[in-house]
């Protein structure tokens, strides 16, 4: 017979062993050893087994005894999620690591713009949903203790012993969680002690259940086939689960695996390596299968062997006890104890993190007069808040247990709890897959789902006339028949679980979706949304968000020291300063740095709090205008990008066109130069030839009359003059181009200059041209070099006389004023200059083909040089009536004019 004292002794030894294991693991981790075990996929998978609580350990058998195979849904849902890890869990784990998420509330709040409202909502919902579950664990422990107690003591003492057991178990769990759960502040760092203890407990509960199973199948039934025969002749021989209930339960348990705070804690927060998840994808379903393998045989044998009225939830214990297998019963008790304690530890840890980060810290920040900037260590506050939260949550569980009086089958309470946390699912999945999900949508969906869950699942679970009066059950809230808690909208006949799950999740999703569609997210939400949904694209991408001034570094340092601890904070700052290339100086609070710091702080106090604390110090806008612009719309970004491309390609086209134009010009110039060279050699040769011929005649022919001599000599003379003029022109141009010309600027009258030019040009030309002038317009005083200007005008008038191809040539000299400038236009009535020649006429050596070889093509080039020197401009304009040369001159005071004339 197992005495109660022996049981307590074994329990104490077991607990002491757990403390020792946890302590050793913490110490090994602190010294950087044992990583092969602490960070192994095996430990990761085993730690996931906190999914299997006392509910599954004891309750599954009871469940099977009542409803046959239905219990297995609780394992099938998680198995499906794990096998489909690629879809959801991979994403969650990556986001959890990238954003340094501390809890499921943190994940949801951070996704929706680091909203503290959402964090508080999720935290409260989690506490409300999980507290019954914690109570359930205490209840299972006391139930199991009472089994042993009933063998020993009188029936009167059982309740007393059980109550004591519940209290001491709660106290012991609180102590363990405080000791190993709050050792380090950074919730993102692994709690090695807790995890390793949970892994050990996972092995114990699996071994215990398998041992009982093996004993039942081979020890009591005599083998597998006999066991199956027993099943077929038992009370639960047939399948009688409704399809709707079957489906709803699988969906519910699948949702719970993702949403339960404790599962999130071990799966995402404590995850060390994403590859572990891949291994868990088959290892964890294997564990679940092993856990559920012997449930039906134990239930069937229990139903057969145990007297009617025995609680089927405790068959795992009572069947071995009834067969005198005390050792096995003790092992089974330890298995159940392990299941209960590991669940309570991790659930409390997860909830206390949420509570201290999202409720206590924000309140403290708000109540504290100087907020985050006051001196003193915030770490104490955070750790104290977390410890207080642990005590509070375990107390809540204990009080719930006392208040509910341990009523109800274990499975029912577990399902209620699952239904509560499953309400996170729409906001969670929407947040990681859909960028359109908004904070208001999440708030709406969560609120609606939570209220419906309360009304249709939690409150009715206490039974009629407990939380809800029987009248409400029968006639609906306030007598409205459509609001009956188990038949909403008048739909009766549904299984209560199916009913509650269906209405709460579907309306939750509907409100989440519709409100999201009709609301508009804040910039921070959109940033976070993009980071979550595209986590695989830029999980290590550039951080954005804060725009800080240099002065903030000191304050940030002070605050960080108080949260991270002085050494860690300094190490962090030094590392970032080095990254920025600064030695011995604090890092510049660039947006990247502040973002990294925020993540680091978020790992300790949660995203919303970290955001608020940094916001207090930076005090500024969390997002700069550029960031806003950048994320305002991807389409805007794409548009911007494509328009940039367009601009660039336009610029390229433009450049290419200019290049080809320049190339064309160059080719033309080179051609002209060639032409000119042959031209100038021709020009030089013609006079040279006649000079040589006539000088030879003068030298060799004796009988020359004096008249002939004179004629030949004057030909030689005029040819020499022509050569000189050509050389003069070249020299003139060369001087002008090299800027060696000296200008003789003075006050001159434009009419006088034009008069001089026209007279000179007409005198030197044999052709006649009619010249039209408006003398009054020409009465303008200029400050310029009149000789050079006259030279230009002479050239232009001469050109008109020479090249105007009209039968009755007319040259109009028009003067007009345009602002400060004076424009003198020489317009003839000829056919003008062909377009292809227009671009080169001002170049040197440019000659139009029709020339009679009079000039060398230097006149206009010289004109342009002169006018440029005079601070003006000359250009050719093709008019309908003919060609027009326009000379733009500056008409200013002598002083300004002198300045504008380019230096000689």
């Amino acid at each position, binding site marked *: 017979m197992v005495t109660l004292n022996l049981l307590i002794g074994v329990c104490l030894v077991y607990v002491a062993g757990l403390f020792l294991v946890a302590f050793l693991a913490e110490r090994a981790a602190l010294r950087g050893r044992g990583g092969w075990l602490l960070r192994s996929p095996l430990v990761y998978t085993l730690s996931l087994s906190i999914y299997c609580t006392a509910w599954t350990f004891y309750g599954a058998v009871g469940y099977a005894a009542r409803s046959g195979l239905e219990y297995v849904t609780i394992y099938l849902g998680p198995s499906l999620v794990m096998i489909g890890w*690629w879809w959801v869990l991979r994403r969650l784990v990556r986001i959890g690591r990238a954003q340094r998420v501390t809890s499921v509330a943190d994940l949801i709040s951070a996704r929706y713009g680091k909203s503290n409202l959402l964090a508080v909502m999720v935290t409260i919902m989690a506490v409300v949903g999980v507290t019954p579950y914690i109570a359930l664990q205490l209840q299972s422990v006391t139930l199991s203790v009472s089994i042993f107690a009933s063998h020993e003591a009188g029936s009167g003492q059982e309740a007393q012993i059980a109550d004591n057991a519940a209290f001491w178990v709660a106290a012991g769990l609180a102590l363990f969680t405080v000791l190993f759960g709050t050792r380090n502040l950074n919730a993102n760092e692994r709690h090695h002690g807790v995890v390793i203890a949970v892994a050990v407990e996972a092995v114990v509960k699996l071994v215990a259940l398998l041992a009982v199973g093996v004993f039942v199948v081979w020890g009591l039934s005599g083998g597998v086939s006999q066991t199956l025969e027993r099943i077929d002749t038992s009370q639960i021989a047939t399948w009688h689960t409704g399809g709707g209930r079957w489906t709803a339960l699988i969906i519910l348990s699948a949702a719970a695996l993702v949403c339960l705070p404790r599962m999130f804690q071990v799966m995402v927060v404590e995850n060390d390596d994403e590859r572990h998840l891949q291994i868990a994808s088959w290892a964890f379903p294997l564990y679940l299968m092993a856990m559920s393998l012997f449930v039906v045989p134990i239930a069937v044998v229990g139903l057969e062997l145990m007297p009617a009225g025995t609680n089927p939830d405790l068959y795992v214990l009572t069947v071995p006890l009834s067969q005198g297998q005390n050792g096995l019963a003790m092992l089974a008790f330890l298995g159940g104890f392990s299941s209960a304690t590991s669940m309570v530890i991790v659930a409390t840890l997860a909830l206390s993190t949420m509570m201290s980060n999202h409720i206590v810290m924000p309140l403290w920040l708000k109540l504290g007069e100087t907020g985050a900037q006051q001196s003193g260590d915030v770490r104490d506050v955070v750790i104290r808040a977390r410890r207080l939260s642990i005590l509070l949550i375990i107390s809540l569980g204990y009080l719930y247990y006392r208040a509910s009086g341990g009523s109800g089958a274990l499975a029912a309470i577990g399902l209620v709890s699952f239904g509560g946390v499953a309400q996170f699912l729409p906001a969670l999945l929407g947040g990681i897959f859909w960028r359109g999900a908004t904070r208001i949508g999440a708030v709406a969906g969560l609120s609606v789902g939570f209220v419906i869950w309360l009304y249709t699942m939690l409150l009715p679970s206490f039974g009629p006339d407990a939380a809800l009066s029987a009248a409400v059950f029968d006639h609906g809230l306030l007598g409205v028949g459509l609001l009956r808690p188990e038949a909403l909208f008048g739909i009766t006949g549904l299984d209560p679980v199916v009913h509650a799950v269906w209405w709460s999740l579907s309306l939750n999703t509907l409100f989440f979706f519709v409100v999201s569609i009709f609301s508009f997210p804040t910039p921070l939400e959109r940033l976070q949304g993009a980071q979550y949904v595209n986590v695989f694209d830029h999980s290590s991408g550039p951080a954005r968000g804060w725009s800080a001034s240099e002065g903030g570094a000191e304050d940030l340092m002070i605050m960080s020291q108080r949260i991270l601890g002085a050494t860690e904070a300094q190490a962090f700052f030094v590392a970032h300063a080095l990254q920025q290339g600064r030695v011995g100086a604090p890092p510049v609070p660039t947006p990247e740095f502040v973002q990294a710091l925020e993540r680091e702080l978020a790992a300790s106090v949660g995203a919303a709090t970290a955001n608020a604390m940094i916001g207090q110090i930076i005090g500024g806008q969390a997002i700069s205008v550029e960031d806003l612009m950048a994320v305002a719309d991807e389409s805007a970004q794409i548009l911007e990008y494509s328009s940039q491309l367009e601009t660039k390609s336009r610029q390229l086209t433009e450049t290419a066109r200019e290049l080809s134009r320049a190339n064309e010009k160059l080719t033309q110039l080179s051609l002209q130069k060639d032409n000119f060279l042959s031209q100038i050699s021709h020009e030089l040769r013609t006079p040279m030839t006649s000079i040589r011929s006539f000088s030879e005649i003068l030298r060799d022919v004796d009988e020359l009359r004096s008249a002939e001599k004179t004629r030949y000599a004057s030909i030689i003379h005029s040819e020499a003059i022509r050569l000189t003029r050509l050389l003069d022109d070249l020299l003139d141009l060369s001087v002008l181009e090299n800027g060696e010309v000296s200008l003789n600027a003075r006050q001159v009258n434009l009419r006088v200059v034009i008069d001089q030019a026209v007279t000179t040009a007409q005198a030197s030309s044999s052709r006649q041209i009619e010249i039209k002038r408006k003398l009054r317009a020409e009465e303008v005083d200029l400050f310029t070099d009149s000789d050079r200007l006259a030279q230009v005008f002479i050239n232009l008038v001469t050109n008109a006389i020479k090249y105007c191809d009209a039968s009755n040539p007319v040259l109009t000299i028009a003067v007009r004023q345009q602002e400060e400038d004076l424009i003198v236009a020489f317009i003839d009535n000829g056919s003008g200059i062909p377009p292809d020649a227009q671009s080169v006429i001002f170049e040197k050596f440019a000659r139009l083909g029709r020339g009679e070889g009079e000039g060398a093509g230097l006149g206009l080039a010289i004109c342009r040089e002169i006018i440029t020197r005079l601070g003006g401009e000359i250009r050719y304009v093709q008019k309908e009536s003919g060609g027009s040369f326009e000379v733009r001159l500056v008409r200013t005071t002598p002083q300004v004019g002198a300045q504008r004339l380019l230096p000689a």
Partner: protein
Amino acid sequence: MPEGRLFLERRSYRLRRIMDALRMLPFLGALLWIVVPAMWPNGDDGAVPIALSTALWYVFSVWLLAITASFALWRKTRDRIDADAARSAD
């Protein structure tokens, strides 16, 4: 060398199809675990309900198959999944 490249392409092609299988596996599991049992006669409509031992065999056989398939896929894809996941996301 063309042979070598052909070999590599076949390998990455195979890996992508394995990734497809990995993604489809939970849906196959859901079909076998949710849809099939939900359609079993449960005695409500007068039909003879299915025996619990048969249901037990079925559920656990599917379970074993799913675990085996998941394990096999893990063996094929480990170490390469991170590198390939981004590219084969479509």
